[in-house]
């Protein structure tokens, strides 16, 4: 696994369905960096979001990588 992957080591659980979500993308969020400049990843220039989607209902949630 590369740096930042599955940062918290546990799968996200869909709050609607209670099933494990699939972690399918890392996305740089430049706007989050405006409100939390101290959290900007110095190598990437933004704040990295892990993107997780529920296989049952299709809901997508994000969480910040560590």
């Amino acid at each position, binding site marked *: 696994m590369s740096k930042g992957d599955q940062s918290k080591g546990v799968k996200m659980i869909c709050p609607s369905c209670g099933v494990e979500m*699939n972690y399918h993308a890392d996305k740089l969020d430049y706007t989050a960096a405006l409100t939390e400049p101290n959290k900007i990843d110095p190598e990437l220039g933004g704040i990295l*979001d892990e993107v997780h989607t529920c*296989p049952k209902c299709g809901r997508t949630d994000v969480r910040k990588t560590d």
Partner: protein
Amino acid sequence: MDGARPVFIPVILGTPRQGRMSEHVARFVLGEVSKREGVETELIDIRNISIPVTDAGENVKEAKLSETIMRADALVIVVPEYNHGYPGLLKHVLDTNLKEYIHKAVGICGVSAGGFGGTRVIQNLLPVMRELGLVTIFWDGNFSSVQNIFDTSGNLVDQAYIKRIDKFLKELIWMAKVLRYGREKVPLE
């Protein structure tokens, strides 16, 4: 894939202008999408989305729009060409979401009074789509000289657009299904 859930493809009408011809295009495409088995759609009219212009991005997101995009598997964006670019309000509205778009498909219909079918506005919109996390398809809708394609009531006059939009939608639906499978089943390595 969860066969029980229909594919959801809303159509975004990308200008608030009084007298907009793009509305004819959006309603025509909406009608063609709604004919597809297993596909749901609805119109997102940016004229009806009230967001402040004193801020930008997710700070000013509108809950209903976010819910609709969250539920979507793909988007159709109907965009008029304004000075070879896209309407500023469309960009302002698109910028209010991010996670809602990731790994979803998008197809663009360009609308122009001139002869190039919105080709220039489509090309200008492609890099924006990419940064939003949307995946573009290789078919576009090109509505050149739009004033000649519909009558004043918005009825399609040039029937060639039915076949063209059929090709566009087939590709978009295929991409929507593949990306849904990917979002839900294929992990990031």
